[in-house]
């Protein structure tokens, strides 16, 4: 089978439509992951062990199981409990929840990265807890987190094809439906790969820049 540029031109609008949805899903899930991750990180730091322990277990469980199965769980099991979600919402919740467990680690590392002396100095100068966080800890903790968070944004973008398994019409699903109706697999599949490769090569450049600008978290 030969590569056919005419066919490429034909399917391009459909694929671009899929790409648009892919980007929307990525951004929405990223917001969910950023917010929920902060929640997880704070809950794990909680002095109350009845909060910290169960949250730690939930985070470990979500990290140790496949995103695809979690998506199936949200998409197939929740409706039996009376919670019927549209595929897009189910996908965003699933992706956001899964990656929140990763961003939580970034927040944790970022906060622990602030030297203990800074906390002690804040206490010595009689700052309130709020002032300590707003004026001392956050300004030092956040910049090194930015590259690490961006890294997970890219990872989420690459994982979006999984949502095709729960019938979200993103890039991969558009490509599959085009391929199945025309019996031509080479062009759609290769183009999807090319799209992802191009986007991620660009994002690697941006990531390097972010790392230079904000530094990176020490291991």
């Amino acid at each position, binding site marked *: *089978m030969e590569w056919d540029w005419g066919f490429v031109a034909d399917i391009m609008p459909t694929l671009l439509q899929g790409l648009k949805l892919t980007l929307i899903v990525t951004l929405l899930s990223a917001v969910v992951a950023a917010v929920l991750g902060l929640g997880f990180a704070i809950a794990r730091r909680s002095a109350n062990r009845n909060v910290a322990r169960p949250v730690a277990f939930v985070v470990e*469980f979500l*990290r*140790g*199981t*496949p*995103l*695809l*199965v*979690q998506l*199936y*769980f949200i998409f*197939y*099991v929740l409706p*039996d409990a009376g919670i019927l979600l549209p595929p897009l919402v189910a996908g965003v919740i699933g992706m956001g929840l899964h990656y929140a467990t990763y961003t939580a680690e970034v927040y944790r590392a970022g906060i622990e990265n602030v030297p203990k002396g800074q906390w002690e100095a804040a206490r010595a100068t009689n700052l309130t807890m709020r002032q300590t966080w707003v004026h001392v800890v956050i300004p030092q903790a956040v910049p090194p987190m930015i590259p690490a968070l961006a890294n997970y944004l890219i990872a989420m973008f*690459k*994982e979006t*094809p*999984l949502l095709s*398994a729960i019938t979200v019409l993103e890039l*991969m699903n558009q490509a*599959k439906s085009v*391929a199945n109706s025309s019996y031509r*697999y*080479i062009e759609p*599949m*290769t183009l*999807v*790969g090319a799209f*992802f*490769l191009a986007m*991620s*090569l660009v994002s*690697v450049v941006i990531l390097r820049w972010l790392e230079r600008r904000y530094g990176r978290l020490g291991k």
Partner: protein
Amino acid sequence: MAEWSGYLTLILLGALVTVQLTVMGSALALVVAFLAGLGRIARWWPLRWLATAYIEFFRGTSIFVQLFWVYFVLPFAGVTLSPLAAGVMALGLNVGAYGAEVVRGAILSVPKDQREATVALNLTPYQRMRHVILPQALPLMLPTFGNNAIELLKATAVVSLISLTDMTFQAQVVRAQTGSTLVPFLTILALYFLMALAISSGVRALERRLTAGLDGVR
């Protein structure tokens, strides 16, 4: 009750396929990681360039896209792989690309004077690697390798989409036949989690053994 044991057997058969994929994929990933990781720091530039292209390519697209490409596009180029072979290949090459960066980072983090000392002692390049550099670099690689192996285990779920009968595929079969959703999915989630725990505790044990003689060195 008798029915359920039948369905459970189905899921356990799938678990066997998942374990098989994880073990074979990890083995391939390990080999590829060392080849590409050493290639990236090779002195000969075509080798360096080749390794970089491989790593960027496989890290730039997701396992899902690669798997579909291997399974659906390669047959047109005359290469037809069984679903299992396609799965192992895609998983191994994908995770191997991540592992290659770990290998490179760990080797480069061995202090420079160690390398200079081996040159001064007139060791061959093979001896330098085998007896001086790797024994110090391996313990640094292990924790990340463990995480990579868990990522690989999680990625095996994707092969169910190219009709390989792994655990996720079997759970879908059970769902389709019984209409019950909670039991099959909760069962496989628990099984995946147990496998991930097994990997992380295995790697920790290995780490303890490898670092046993290194106290005081680092």
